[in-house]
């Protein structure tokens, strides 16, 4: 199911500093054809169908076509990813349609404060087994040690 780009929709992300699909693709597949001003998948047989580019494309220009050696034609799977949830539309080969909506995040994007309320590490803690903030986050009072040790 490699990605393909709809030339009617892709505008090459002209308004951005780099094409969104090319920025996000984990496998260096999506690139811009400079002459055409549109993106394409330069190595379809290395596509994992992770949908990262599909989800991020500001023009909804990218879709999947089932792997030619694996999948019958005719089905589609289309995400609409918002800030709090994602909606999937599954269309079967026989044209049945199912829709599913799932939450993706319970806090606003950009809101993470990784060391909130942790404070500075106390002196001498670096050599100890406890990790950052575990007094708050571990959920138990004492870090476990095995019942017997050959140390």
């Amino acid at each position, binding site marked *: 199911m490699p990605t393909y780009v709809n030339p009617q929709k892709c505008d090459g992300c002209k308004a951005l500093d780099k094409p969104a699909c090319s920025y996000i693709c984990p496998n260096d597949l999506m690139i811009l054809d400079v002459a055409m001003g549109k993106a394409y998948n330069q190595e379809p047989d290395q596509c*994992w169908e992770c949908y990262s580019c599909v989800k991020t494309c500001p023009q909804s220009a990218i879709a999947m076509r089932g792997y030619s050696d694996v999948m019958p034609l005719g089905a589609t799977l289309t995400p609409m990813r918002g800030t709090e949830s994602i909606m999937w539309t599954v269309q079967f080969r026989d044209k*049945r349609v199912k829709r599913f909506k799932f939450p993706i995040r319970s806090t606003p994007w950009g809101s*993470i404060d*990784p060391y909130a309320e942790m404070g500075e590490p106390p002196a001498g803690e670096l050599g100890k087994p406890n990790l950052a903030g575990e007094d708050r*986050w571990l959920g138990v009072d004492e870090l476990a040690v095995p019942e017997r040790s050959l140390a």
Partner: protein
Amino acid sequence: MNEAEVEVVETDLLILGGGMAGCGAAFEAGYWAAANGLRVTMVEKAAVERSGAVAMGLSAINCYMGMRWGENQPEDFVRYVRQDLMGLCREDLVYDIARHVDSSVHMFEEWGLPIFKDENGHYKREGRWQIMIHGESYKPIVAEAAKKAIGPENVYERIYVARLLKDPETGAVSGAIGFSTREHKVYVFKARAVISAAGGATGVFRPHAVGEGLGRIWYAPWNTGSAYSLMIRAGAAMTQMEHRLVVTRFKDGYGPVGMWFLLFKGKVRNAYGELYEETQAEALEDFLPYGHGRPIPTPLRNHQMLIDRRQGKGPHYMRTDEALAAMTAGLDPKAVRQIEADAWEDFLDMTMSQALLWASNNIDPAKVPTELDLTEPYLMGSHSSATGAWVSGPEDLSPKGYFWGYNRMSTVPGLFAAGDGVGASAHKFSSGSYTEGRLAAKGAIAYIQDTQGRPAVEDGEVQGIIEELFAPYKTFENGAEKSTKVEVNPDFFYPKQGLMRLQKIMDEYVAGLAANFMTNEPTLNRGLELLGVFREDLAQAAARDRHELLRVWELWDRLWCAEAHARHILFRQETRWPGYYYRGDYPALDEENWHVFVNSSFDAPSGQWKLETQPYHSIVS
């Protein structure tokens, strides 16, 4: 080709890879580094927001103890992992992950990862160790925290790291070198400690689909084994490189089965309606004591299915129809719809193509069962598999011989590992890999604090590596005119062609799918011979652009992993993990002689591999 621009980055701690382990390392390192005035830098070959094995998302966190609710203790987890791994795991490393992992998961939830809850407000369990999540944005959430922890200016993306650097005097790691996949530029990172968290290896073996579906494999195709190849070439001792992961997955889509087995209590039947786990129960008797232990180890379950296959009883089906009928009996339509949504979300969160495969085959899982198949082998240290570096455990619980100064430090001073990079420490999955990154980072910061001065980087070595990195361009330029057809050249091949050759050798000689996971000493020796010739030829691989240059060096990663894998399998004279691979010449489990780890190290100056055993020490009864 012009000279590449060279940027030198001086840092204290260098994290290679921005996946789960790398992001965990960044989070932990940022905390301890800030207090000590140290700089932390993370390098990623893609974009951290969607990189590593969790890029696509996950529908479950498979390593969570639930200690705060008294659900499991670290001892329980060690016993489980030891049984699944047929008796071999570094119990100190596994225990260490288990006692810390809950804290990482609690932070994920605080940061915004939606986690299913049960009627008591506890995390909803899929199985004893697994909790269910709405994990579409798992990686972007974790990435946000990592970037904030060390500062976005210290995150270098779209850089492929090709080699570690070492101080020629002390042998300590002193940095790494890589190239941009976006411009003609080299990065030389000078560091006082390095964490190798650059992922396990896929694409070493030929998968089921070899056409357009070549990339539809179970583990991420961009995980090319960098974590291992970097450390092997730096001379670090590696352990369990003979180990591998072969798992039962939904056929062709490689979709997850955990929810179907654990939550939906799904059964797998062969084409004749038989439950192979029952009809092939006798096969477990050959691999005692583990065959009697429960759960049945992953390789033994594979073994049972393979026997069933050989008896001509396939295909095997996950009876989704039976499972859903049982699950939904007597429920109202709304509850039934919720179960259907959970079933689809399992795929839509982490293996969308399996959902598309259902749709393209008009499969309604409530009515039609779905075929299962065994995957090709992967080399990884985070699942039911344990390849990776031989590292120090934590001081307070590691037996003598398993501790040498700093948690998760390899045998190369200053070089740490995490995630798929650490061997003999299986079943970490996403949360445990993140936690191991944290453990490695704290160890690395302590190492930096204790070690004065900066290790040396030799300019001559850097120059030599830069020249080598771009040689595939030169190969193409020098030879291109020798053929009217650009794909066929007498002097060189392209990385995709090389990948096919590597996968063919491994498939046929090192117990891949085509060989039904079978090999023996003569077959392995022939495979190693062919790998040796391939190594010579790979030095003549050509690249036409930056993308192909990346692929050439990823192929080198895979070749190093392949060679280590074959040598380890050759050394271990037994069949410990039937269903992962079989030694036809040593078909039995040999607990008396081989209940030990197999370690290897590569000596770059002589080009020699050294293999040896390391004793097994237990800390949990």
